């Protein structure tokens, strides 16, 4: 019986049958094995790298050369900077400056940072740095962590209080970070960015291929005729897209579990630190309900957009063998989006807000590859993230409506592979039919 309720049936059938397919089982197994093996591999190659450069040295790398300290706290932090010269920061220089000094001038075009301390109902520490230079937000994050760690020692030296008392005071340290220069946000570690883009490419490729093959197979075997008397074509395609999407995402979740399990079992200290720093560093991420919601909605609607395009490609052919031709447009859009994102991210261009980069963050073809990860790390403003999400949701809705108009006509079509202009003609005819009625 033709209804909207068939969505769950279509979804569950697609999900289960897709997961049962040998190709998916093999790909899942390969992904899990690769994810599990990646940690020992990184350990191995990392170890050989240490022949020329030992890990301690790497950990001791510090981009901050000098700290201009303006101590307005009145408790004498400026007299105890020796405590802040420890570990990787042992060679750091401190210059005490008065609050009359222009902090921005001091740090501009240098690898120095400005630190101002003050006391209200808590200890406030404000950092100012120039993100046009080598110092990254990660460096400042690490340094601020170091200062917080050392603050009890400074307090102990000044006041002679116990560690238990220090723990209470420690909670009341307020950190504020500011940066100067043209940049409004700082870039993300390149390997994190490239990993994300690669994962999205793989997800979209697998989703696209599975959806288009499934639609073309239903069409070529004429199963579609039986299905469309029971459910509306739009319910059918939506159930299929979401079903396949869920399978592919489940594959990546399984691979992720393997990766983290392997990291836990096989990872050396360096690997664990890298994972903690780049992947699980909640402090460097902007994990708020609104942000997570924006990222999820953008990701899901982005995959739906590409899924619908793949569904159209599948419906445009009469034989599964002809899919290669109809998937060209899908592949071109995917490649353009991914390469544009890769270029902007690797060149660092995306870190400067210009009309071009704003468009890249918002335009659905590129935004799926950029905005979610930049939003997760809080490197793009909430306004741009919302604009990108809105654009993606609107595109998904428009595409779903468009597909609903042409899919029904296309799935009964038998003949040569339909081209883009034919699909548009289908859509126009359908709109005309509705207007005439």
């Amino acid at each position: 019986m033709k209804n909207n309720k068939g969505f769950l049936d279509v979804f569950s059938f697609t999900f289960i049958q897709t997961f049962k397919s040998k190709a998916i089982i093999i790909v899942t197994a390969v992904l899990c094995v690769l994810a599990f093996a990646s940690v020992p591999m990184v350990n191995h190659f990392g170890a050989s790298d240490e022949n020329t450069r030992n890990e301690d040295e790497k950990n001791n790398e510090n981009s901050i050369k000098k700290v201009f300290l303006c101590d307005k706290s009145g408790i004498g932090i400026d007299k105890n900077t020796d405590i802040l010269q420890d570990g990787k920061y042992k060679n750091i220089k401190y210059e005490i400056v008065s609050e009359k000094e222009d902090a921005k001038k001091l740090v501009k075009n240098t690898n120095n940072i400005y630190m101002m301390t003050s006391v209200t109902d808590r200890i406030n520490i404000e950092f100012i740095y120039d993100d046009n230079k080598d110092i990254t937000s990660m460096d400042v994050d690490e340094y601020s962590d170091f200062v917080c760690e050392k603050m009890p020692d400074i307090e102990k030296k000044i006041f002679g209080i116990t560690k238990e008392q220090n723990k209470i005071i420690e909670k009341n340290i307020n950190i504020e970070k500011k940066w100067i220069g043209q940049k409004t946000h700082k870039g993300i570690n390149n390997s994190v960015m490239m990993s994300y883009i690669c994962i999205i490419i793989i997800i979209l490729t697998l989703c696209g291929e599975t959806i288009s093959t499934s639609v073309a197979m239903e069409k070529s075997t004429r199963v579609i005729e039986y299905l469309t008397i029971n459910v509306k074509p739009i319910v059918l395609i939506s159930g299929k897209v979401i079903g396949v999407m869920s399978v592919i995402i489940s594959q990546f979740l399984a691979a992720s579990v393997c990766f983290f399990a392997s990291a836990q079992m096989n990872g050396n200290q360096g690997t664990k630190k890298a994972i903690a720093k780049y992947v699980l560093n909640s402090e460097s991420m902007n994990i708020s309900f609104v942000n997570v919601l924006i990222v999820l909605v953008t990701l899901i609607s982005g995959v739906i957009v590409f899924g619908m395009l793949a569904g159209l490609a599948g419906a445009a052919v009469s034989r599964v063998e002809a899919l290669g031709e109809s998937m060209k447009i899908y592949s071109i859009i995917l490649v353009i989006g991914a390469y544009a994102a890769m270029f902007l991210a690797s060149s660092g261009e995306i870190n400067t807000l210009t009309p071009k980069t704003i468009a890249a963050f918002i335009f659905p073809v590129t935004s799926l590859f950029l905005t979610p990860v930049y939003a997760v790390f809080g490197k793009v403003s909430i306004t741009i993230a919302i604009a990108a999400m809105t654009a993606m949701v609107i595109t998904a809705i428009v595409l779903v409506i468009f597909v609903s108009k042409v899919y029904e006509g296309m799935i009964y079509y038998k003949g040569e592979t339909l081209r883009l202009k034919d699909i548009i003609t289908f859509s126009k005819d359908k709109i005309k039919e509705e207007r005439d009625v």
Partner: protein
Amino acid sequence: MGLKINNIVKKYGDKTVVNGISFAIDNPGVYALLGTNGAGKTTTIRIILGMIDYESGSVKWNDKDINASDINIGYLAEERGLYPKYSLMDQLMYFGRLRGMNTSDIKKAIKYWSERLEVEKYVYPDKKKKYMKADQLSKGNQQKIQLMAALISNPELIILDEPLSGLDPVNAELFKSIIHEEINKEKYIIMSSHQMSTIEEFCSDITIMNKGNAVLQGNLNEIKKSYGRINLELKCDNDIKDIISRFEFANTEYTPDGYSIRLREEEQAMSLLKELMNNNIDIVNFQRREPSLHEIFIEKVGESNEK
């Protein structure tokens, strides 16, 4: 009660594929849609099923606009469709769920139909607990599974598009017996077929379509009666060529089994019989009969094509 199709028109671009077709199925039984390839039968069926839109006209079930969500419809498509790589059990369960059935009813229906259609060994797992997939079945057995899918929900309206094509005689008989059972259950059935003998066996009412138009409609018996008994089968032991040539029949064909004659009027038969008897011809067979559906079909489609 029943199905009423009123003046439906369907166009693809400038081409009219169904042009004002109307018919009604007031009582349970089998209604036949006949026509050559491309006549518009499948499009008409798809319109009834709500699979495609149409320009004008109406399709009513029990005097209300047809809505596939309100009716339990079973459909056997002309081009059989099963997922080649999925297990038959999974597919039947899926089709049942799409029809709004619960799992227990689907399982009961699968059990009943797999026994009735003698396909239990394909539907249920083998000793190694492996389920069979559609591409491992012969064409005939795939067709049986397809019929199961069509009948699984015990539909009140059944549409069978070429149900017997590609079946061996044994399986064709099995399908026929199932169709008879469904007729006895007072189901409304629309059947499309090129096999005229099958149509004659089941159908009381027909529509013959050609190029989207209905070229002949009505009760099959009445249509045949309206033609009269103008077909004559004649077999004699003597040579009767000269006698035959004295008459102006509509058509005369000689076969090894005798003459097959199409009369212009029924009276010609008596005249010919008298002439044969006057000439002391030894008559083996002299039989007048109504035209077969096949003959009516060929004639009507031919006339329509000439226009």
